[in-house]
């Protein structure tokens, strides 16, 4: 079964082939469901000039934010980039190219990239700065703009469980952008909390089929919480 066994044994191996100026699509929303160790490996490698596609850019010392101090990110395509002082500094100084993209459009652009859809129309962003330079068209009396797909040289993904074939299961809202990211990478690398044998996952309950996954690695995760909100136990 060697052919479908996607498991690699080191993070170095997991991110092998990542080169300067590549495009990396990352799953995660805020700090939830981010491929934290794959990001750390990119920091360790010191790869530069990256275009990163991710809903957010982490915080100053966690998530994609850790790639900022060494200026590893040249450009980021994201929907929301608050909560990060170094990010703001680089953006304001023009050291970092930021392409703000509506969250739903971003998700759909990743899905389209993986699904062989080069472009689609959406009402989102019509008449706003997002529409600048994009084709506009009416369907049934409503206005839409044309948005193009996004593909990455690498996609980095965090799942909960996987079998060795790369079939993935996500947990709660840590799913978010991860399934779309997984489809849109030329090389898709996934880190997970548990790896089981093929056949152990219910085929009806697999969120991402292994066909999208090239490399799989078992990790341990900090899972930092960005907004810790609790109620009293009463």
């Amino acid at each position, binding site marked *: 079964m060697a052919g479908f066994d996607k498991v690699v044994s080191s993070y170095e191996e997991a991110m092998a082939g990542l080169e300067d100026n590549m495009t990396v699509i990352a799953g995660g929303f805020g700090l939830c469901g981010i491929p934290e160790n794959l990001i750390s490996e990119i920091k360790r490698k010191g790869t530069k000039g990256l275009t990163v596609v991710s809903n957010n850019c982490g915080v100053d010392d966690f998530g994609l934010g850790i790639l900022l101090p060494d200026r590893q990110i040249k450009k980021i395509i994201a929907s929301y980039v*608050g909560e990060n002082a170094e990010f703001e500094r680089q953006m304001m100084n023009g050291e970092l190219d930021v392409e703000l993209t509506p969250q*739903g459009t971003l998700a759909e652009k990743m899905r389209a990239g993986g699904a062989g859809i080069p472009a689609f129309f959406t*009402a989102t962003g*019509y*008449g706003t700065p997002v529409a600048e330079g994009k084709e506009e068209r009416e369907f049934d009396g409503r206005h839409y703009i044309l948005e193009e797909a996004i593909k990455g040289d690498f996609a980095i993904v965090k799942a909960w469980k996987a079998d060795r074939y790369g079939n993935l299961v996500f947990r*709660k809202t840590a799913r978010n952008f991860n399934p*779309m990211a997984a489809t849109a990478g030329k090389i898709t690398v996934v880190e997970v909390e548990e790896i089981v044998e093929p056949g152990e996952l219910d085929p009806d309950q697999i969120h991402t089929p292994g066909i999208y996954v090239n490399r799989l690695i078992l990790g341990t995760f900090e899972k930092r919480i960005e907004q810790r909100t609790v109620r009293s136990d009463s």
Partner: protein
Amino acid sequence: MALSREQLAQRVAQELQDGYYVNLGIGIPTLVANFVPEGMEVMLQSENGLLGMGQFPTEAELDADLINAGKQTVTMAKGASIFDSAESFAMIRGGHVDLTVLGAFEVDVNGNIASYMIPGKLIKGMGGAMDLVAGADNIIVTMTHASKHGVSKLLSNCTLPLTGKGCIKKVLTDLAFIEIKNGKFYLLERAPGVSVEEIISLTEGELVVEGDIPEMKF
């Protein structure tokens, strides 16, 4: 008296209907969940991939894998479902959410809304707001009627970069409940104790006042 944050939320809650799927933005909209009328059930959609958002977790329930669109830890209500971001925005963009409540910096008489960016000052990104205003038929914008310095936020033309064009029909401010149609604001209700004159003076865009304007009831 201008409405408090809680009163704003309370008034919005009067627009809820039993069985509504609702998306509540960050800030005042979030408070609406506290005022769901007795005997009525609504289900909260959180655009990061959760339908059926519950209350905040206890310490024991705290789970880093379960957050809302404001990145706060939450729980799931009974009958909740989890999905990916593409599915979540398919729901939103496809018009399946019954009511969307969100804040704004400015709205204008043409239903334009500016809510995500102040050039040179605040550039954090639109998150899901552009999808929410473009996808929903039924949107209530909650905002203060004017700035602290008395500058109206209900304008002839938005001055800030738009979040959406021609998509807002209802605005609840701390002073008034307003409908937008035919390129004008229509005054529907006023906050208790707030005069029509005060509302007129703080509304820069054309405001239509027809007949007696009732006070909001709580």
